[in-house]
């Protein structure tokens, strides 16, 4: 019997597990995929929003601003890349200028610090590639960027370091309430018992809630499509550029990720299927068209990949954080600014649990910090030399685009939560994320995974499930 079971290893589940792992209690993290950060927390804009956007007084507003304040420290403890690059919300016409004023007021009401209204030239002075047609902008200096899957991985890893257990490929299909807690069943028949259950299942959070009889909300997948540009396009902008919302909606953004790539998007279109992560020609065309308003020229020839993220859009207009059944807590419909809010959501869940009578005491040996991963490519020649002398695997570069070494890949497999597939290595080390998108390093990564996990290469997958990369060995006639 676990004290708490957290369903979903996204950023919310990860942050919650980390927070709870400070207490002397047993924690199970249940994730339906083979790895963590496979839902919304993998594919989003990665913006640590300042908090001028949500309706004042809403959970979104409060937790966003609080999350923003907590983010820098959280990232520092977890060794996650974070950059406070500021945001410019740009306006092109009279309607926009009016809305900019409203946004400024709202931001102030939400408690966002440092907001400033700029004219077009002042904005261009900050970001010189902004289009001449930009007439004004709202500057939000507390806006930042973070790598969302890195944050999730390190949060889960930190929770695990402090004793939490991760169950992979554990797709919760049924929850039964018993006298002392809950019996949680996975699709493959595995069963886990827990006193408390926390629902952090993203777009499936409505399905999980209904397993305990809570049908009070639904969550729709709302797709956002993106294009990612090579680091060579990094000159385009440093700050995050948003279009001020107008009667047409919110529009797209352009930002420089913590790793230095330019990210363009997202669109916003509801989809029927919660698994439909297709990238569409139409969606990409919309991104292109909208981005072209921001800048006079966008180097679309530097696109290295495109992807789609599905927002867990709840029908209540706000985050759903409550306890519909004693011992069961929802963190549902956590769409944007959910990434930003995650550290604050975790604190809120902790409070709800303690208020509901959970008796636990703080651990003595809790460690909120993680050992920072070595990023070989960022080391000086002297440091590189020292690393190689200590471990010659640092001298073997597997991914040439991002200069990732064998030692870093092995570390990604061995450190909590260990990578088990090619995409997992990619999210932890950036191997395969550069401009050749794994063409060169994938065979090497696959071999290292097979060797380290003691599997045959043909068993290694791209991203779990049936996503096998190879169909067996050549020369079937070969006699064994």
């Amino acid at each position, binding site marked *: 019997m676990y004290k708490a079971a957290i369903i979903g290893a996204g950023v919310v589940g990860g942050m919650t597990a980390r927070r709870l792992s400070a207490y002397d209690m047993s924690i199970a993290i249940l994730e339906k995929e083979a790895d963590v950060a496979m839902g919304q927390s993998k594919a989003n804009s990665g913006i640590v929003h300042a908090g001028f956007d949500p309706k004042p007084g809403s959970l979104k507003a409060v937790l966003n601003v609080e999350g923003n304040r907590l983010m820098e420290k959280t990232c520092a403890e977890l060794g996650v890349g974070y950059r406070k690059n500021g945001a410019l919300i740009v306006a092109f016409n009279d309607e926009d200028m009016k809305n900019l004023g409203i946004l400024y007021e709202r931001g102030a009401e939400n408690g966002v610090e440092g907001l400033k209204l700029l004219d077009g030239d002042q904005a261009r002075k900050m970001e010189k590639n902004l289009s001449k047609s930009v007439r004004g902008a709202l500057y939000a200096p507390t806006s930042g960027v973070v790598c969302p899957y890195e944050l999730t991985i390190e949060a889960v890893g930190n929770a695990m370091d402090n004793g939490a257990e991760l169950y992979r490929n554990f797709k919760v299909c049924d929850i039964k309430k018993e006298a002392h807690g809950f019996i949680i069943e996975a699709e493959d028949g595995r069963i886990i018992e827990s006193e408390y259950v926390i629902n952090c299942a993203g777009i499936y959070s409505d399905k999980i809630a209904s397993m305990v009889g809570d049908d009070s909300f639904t969550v729709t997948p709302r797709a956002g499509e993106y294009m990612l540009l090579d680091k060579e396009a990094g000159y385009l902008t440093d700050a995050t550029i948003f279009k001020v919302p107008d009667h047409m909606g919110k529009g797209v953004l352009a930002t420089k990720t913590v790793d230095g790539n330019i990210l363009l998007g997202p669109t916003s279109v509801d989809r029927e299927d919660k698994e439909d992560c297709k990238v569409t020609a139409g969606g990409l065309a919309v991104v292109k068209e909208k981005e072209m308003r921001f800048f006079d020229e966008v180097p679309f020839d530097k696109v290295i990949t495109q992807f789609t993220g599905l927002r867990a859009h709840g029908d209540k207009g706000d985050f759903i954080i409550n306890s519909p059944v004693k011992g069961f807590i929802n963190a549902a419909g956590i769409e944007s600014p959910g990434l930003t809010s995650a550290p604050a959501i975790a604190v809120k869940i902790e409070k709800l649990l303690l208020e509901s009578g959970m008796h636990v005491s703080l651990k003595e040996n809790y460690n909120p910090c993680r050992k920072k991963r070595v990023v070989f490519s960022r080391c000086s*020649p002297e440091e590189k030399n020292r690393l190689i002398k200590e471990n010659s695997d640092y001298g*073997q570069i597997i991914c040439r685009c991002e200069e990732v070494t064998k030692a870093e890949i092995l570390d990604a497999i061995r450190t909590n939560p260990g990578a088990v597939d090619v995409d997992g290595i990619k999210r932890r080390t950036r191997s395969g994320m550069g401009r050749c998108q794994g063409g060169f390093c994938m*065979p090497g990564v696959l071999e290292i995974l097979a060797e380290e996990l003691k599997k045959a290469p043909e068993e290694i997958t791209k991203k779990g499930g049936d996503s096998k990369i190879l169909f067996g060995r*050549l020369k079937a*006639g070969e006699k064994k």
Partner: protein
Amino acid sequence: MKNAQVVIIGGGPAGMSAAVAAKEAGAERVMVIERDSSLGGILQQCIHNGFGLHKFGEELTGPEYAERYEKLVSDAGIEFLTDTMVTDLSRDRVVTCVNGNGCMQIKADAVVLAMGCRERPRGALNVPGERPAGVITAGTAQKFVNMKGYLPGKKIVILGSGDIGLIMARRMTLEGVEVKAVCEIMEDSGGLTRNIVQCLRDFEIPLKLHHTVTEIHGKERVEGVTVTEVDDKLNPVRGTEEYISCDTLMLSVGLIPENELSKKAEIKMDLKTKGPVIGEFKQTEVPGIFACGNVVKVHELVDFVSDEGEIAGRNAARFALGKDLEAGEKGKKHVTEKKGVKNLAPEGEPVVICTVCPVGCKITVTSPEKEGEEFKTEGNTCSRGRAYAIKEVTSPERTLTTVMRCGDGTMVPVKTDRPIPKDKIFECMKIINEKTLMLPIKLGDIIIEKIGETEANVVCSKSLS
């Protein structure tokens, strides 16, 4: 910091020929740095033949061509570091590299860039759809099949009909894979005509010109692709979509010179070729830094890469020795081989593109009307061409290249030492597939004599120990 007169970055054909030429031109301390575990570059995975027609006047496989140069390099006593990657280069020619022994810096009097090229990934192409496993570039597939001995798919569609796509269509077919179609967005294939004949037509693989892949289906593994015709502006034509079920989409959509290092040294680049701007001495705009081969622009034939390497290597040595630079031989003209389907006659017609030499004559063959009369040929410029053309319409023959497995998992490239009848190809593949090899093995070693009752022996095309 170490010193060297000429440092060559990349040990492919360009780098090797540059090294040999630099040594010949008088440089004492020449050093080749290669990140792979052996010299040879991309040639090591190009086990098919078609290399060296210009340079050596014979058809070699990639590994054979590489081995000739490896021998020249070692005979000349040139130092080379393998498993070593150059990670930085400065304008004043400090080369930083990394291997299992540490991170090392070398100050070079002259540098030759010979890093080759890389494949364009799918993202750069904006193919919409899911992101399943099973989307692979042709070069990666080639590495899996030829070097590692793994099959990356069973039913494939290839996007792009450049030579690599064509070569891989044949290669996969030989290994029992079903190649459902090769799609080419342009109105003609950019591949050599001989490859269209020998890689597609021989195996009746459909080539869909003016078609592209507009969607990838499948969540975990590819389940199919939508193939659509495009108009003159290359936009998909609505209503022409066709779903092809497959487990793999192989991309052969072009190569880009690998110039991370050139950019680090802030060498001026040519926006069109995506390689450094070079002059007649193969020198970049940074004095003392030279460039050759695929790093400059994508070359179709290795022979020209070797020629370019010679000029670059010689001049790098001359620069290091303080001598004036020399241009290459003037008037040395490269014959360009025929490309695309436009040179081909419709299937079934007696027109043959000669592959005996790079000229590629278009020869029409007319069968004798009466017994005892001879075949008539038109369009050939030599008697070898005539003989080839007649053979091609009566009983076509092909050289078979493939790999064999060793007990320890090493894959050995092999070939038939002469062409075999085309209709015996699969029979011979079966015989080859049943045999396992043992190391060490030398280039030219006979592995199977007179395979499948033909006159041809299967020989090893790479020395391995």
